[in-house]
């Protein structure tokens, strides 16, 4: 039995790793089929991911919002909820952070903190709506969150046009005091857009782990996720926990928006379509097995792949869309983790 548990843990680590490798291999095969040179392609890809200090900086920068949106999905999932609304929560968080960053004038540290908190609160409230509807009226959170994504997309665009419009489909820029960008980080990575947001993302990962694994609240949240009936029997308030879980999840998503607003862009664009970061969070959480540490690693992988795509196109002439295929294949392999388990189990049996 002890052996079985150990195997289980090993599998949980092995499945994502093997999936990532298989995804890349399959990508190489597709390159060959498309008459591209896979060696040159991957050389360009890896160099675009971590070949130069700037590449490393860009990879980490791209990973920051991914980590937070992955945490949002993972947190909800660990408590038995499926938050498809990370994209929408991210957008309202982004807008809230830009608004606070633009409309107030405060000392630097305080201003940044307040802007990030605004993003978390906005995202949290946006996540609370589906949580409340689920708790009180048993409306499935997947439906509500999907619809709220569209509401968020158009409402944020409208609000920018009405109150924050600086022309050229962009909002006003935030004040320097609210910015996460750092000349220092930019300099040591030789000119990347790396900003302090990665620290926020790492702290958030620790917070997620701490809440779920170390607190009485986390015990309750997970218990409600695993078995509502037993939780009710034990005297827990199931409704309260569903709402709380969606709120915390939304707060992580909102902070992912702050990464864009206060870090990468310093403003918000009037968007006509989704950023995709919120949906990538689902992939990130899946590859990271909903584990805070795993989410950090998978964000770095996906963030790196996305930032390196143009370089692969430029150096090896491989279309950057191939990256989307590779990411999709990795997810495919993770989702078919069951098959990998069965194969691995068979091998380990024969190896005995």
């Amino acid at each position, binding site marked *: 039995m002890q052996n079985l*548990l150990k195997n289980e843990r090993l599998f949980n680590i092995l499945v994502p790793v093997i999936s990532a490798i298989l995804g890349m291999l399959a990508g190489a095969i597709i390159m060959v089929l498309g008459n591209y040179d896979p060696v040159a392609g991957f050389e360009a890809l890896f160099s675009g991911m971590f070949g130069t200090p700037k590449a490393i900086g860009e990879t980490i920068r791209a990973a920051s919002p991914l980590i937070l949106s992955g945490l949002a999905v993972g947190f909800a999932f660990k408590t038995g909820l499926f938050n498809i609304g990370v994209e929408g929560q991210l957008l309202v968080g982004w807008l809230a952070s830009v608004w606070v960053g633009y409309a107030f004038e405060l000392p630097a540290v305080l201003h940044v903190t307040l802007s990030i908190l605004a993003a978390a609160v906005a995202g949290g409230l946006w996540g609370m709506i589906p949580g409340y509807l689920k708790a009180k009226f048993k409306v499935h959170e997947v439906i509500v969150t999907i619809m709220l994504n569209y509401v968020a997309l158009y409402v944020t665009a409208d609000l920018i046009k009405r109150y924050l419009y600086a022309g050229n489909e962009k909002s006003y820029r935030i004040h320097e005091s609210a910015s996460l960008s750092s000349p220092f980080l930019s300099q040591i990575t030789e000119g990347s857009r790396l900003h302090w947001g990665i620290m926020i993302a790492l702290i958030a990962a620790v917070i997620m782990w701490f809440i779920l694994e*170390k607190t*009485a609240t986390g015990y309750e949240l997970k218990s409600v996720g695993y078995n509502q009936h037993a939780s009710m029997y034990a005297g827990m308030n199931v409704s309260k926990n569903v709402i709380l879980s969606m709120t915390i999840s939304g707060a992580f998503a909102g902070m992912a928006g702050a990464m864009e607003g206060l870090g990468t862009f310093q403003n918000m664009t009037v968007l006509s379509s989704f950023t995709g970061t919120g949906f990538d969070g689902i992939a990130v959480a899946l590859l990271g097995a909903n584990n805070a540490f795993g989410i950090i690693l998978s964000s770095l992988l996906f963030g790196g792949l996305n930032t390196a795509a143009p370089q692969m196109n430029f150096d090896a002439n491989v279309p950057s869309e191939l990256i989307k295929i590779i990411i999709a294949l990795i997810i495919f392999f993770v989702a078919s983790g069951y098959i990998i388990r069965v194969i691995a189990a068979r091998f380990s049996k024969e190896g005995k």
Partner: protein
Amino acid sequence: MQEYVIEMNNIRKEFPGIVANDNITLQVKKGEIHALLGENGAGKSTLMNVLFGLYQPEKGEIKVKGKEVKITDPNVANRLGIGMVHQHFMLVHNFTVTENIILGSEPTKGGKINIEDAAKKVSELSQRYGLSVDPHAKIEDISVGMQQRVEILKTLYRGAEILIFDEPTAVLTPQEIKELIQIMEKLVQEGKSIILITHKLKEIMEVCDRCTVIRKGKGIGTVNVSETNPDELAALMVGREVHFKVEKQQATPKDVVLEIDQLVVHDARDIPSVNGLDLNVRAGEILGIAGVDGNGQTELIEGITGLRKVKSGSIKINGKDVTNLPARKITETGLGHIPQDRHKHGLVLDYSIGANMVLQTYYQKPFSKSGILNYGKIYEKARKLIEEYDVRTPSEFTPARALSGGNQQKAIIAREVDRSPDLLIAAQPTRGLDVGAIEFIHSKLIEERDNGKAVLLISFELEEVMNVSDRIAVIYEGRIVDIVDPKETSEQELGLLMAGGKREREGVL
């Protein structure tokens, strides 16, 4: 003609870390009812899954009608005439009986399912074996006993000669059990052979011809039922002497702990299920509630424990009105609750057994301080309870899901009794457990009583109610219709009361 229809010789089946079946031999004669007896986790299900083709044995041979066979999957088993009636029915609820029976081997005529022919065949089979199943009834509309007959029909329809019954009586009422026994006898008369997996000795004595006992994965032997008795079988199964008669002193009831007055609780369809119920339970006594399933027992428990809103009436624990308080408040007032469905309510199966031990107390000191859990203290408590209640688990970190039913139940009882509640509600506390575990649980309930606690026992097993209780309250259509002394009543009298009859008062003209 060969003597055995089924021979499983020296079967060995291993799982990582454990040997589930170690050199077990099971030989079933044609036309007999053969019991497979063993404690929970002894390896009965594994052995039957080997026979049904779900597992492949590491060693040993299987012969069907004298011919050695290799059963690689359930389809092969079906073709060899082996059918399984599962404990948890595998039926599609919004399909009719016939649709369920033909599922997977639908007879077609020109590409269309020929449901009429199938229904006719089902009805013929039903008549022949005395099953009286309506082929056009929907599964969701028929009783549990009827659903089980559909499962039986399913195997017969597929031409089964050997039927495996996996603990078939666990879900049935006493009346349904009687009918099932008749059906089994009829099946045997018609030339079928039956393997009955069970740990209920009474059933074995009643219907079986021979009995194979396994203990901790090992074959203990096969005995003729006519030459043995329940005591011997129990000893074979558990490996030691077992006491059937619960030994207990006369109860010394004290103050009223639970006081229920004119309680009305509605069920999920908003129909009054508990309907003006009065009941008192005193400290130092076990009050048993006897009744046919569905007479308001579930709603009564849910009403007392705060899991369901009470429409009217009042519930007091130690004089304190707890009607419609949140479940946590009631628990803190001094309630322990061993729930009817241990998987649904009793445990968070994905949590470790240690985490489950603090399901109601995780937020209190010393397990939690300003909202931060102290896992050191939690697991320390768990280790203590595991040891004290003899919960067989590899460690306190093992997921509750991995434990056998009996050990899961012991863990729940450890948790509930350890809180030392003034009122302990035990709903079907021994459901599906073997004699060893039952003995342990009964002795714990009596121990609690002797410690001056009030115990409310709800059970569908008359024998259990009569053995353990100090007073028996009979529930019928949501009311307590009578309270009797277990020493002065009989199963017949209780059965009559449970069916809504009146007691004939002795000494009254």
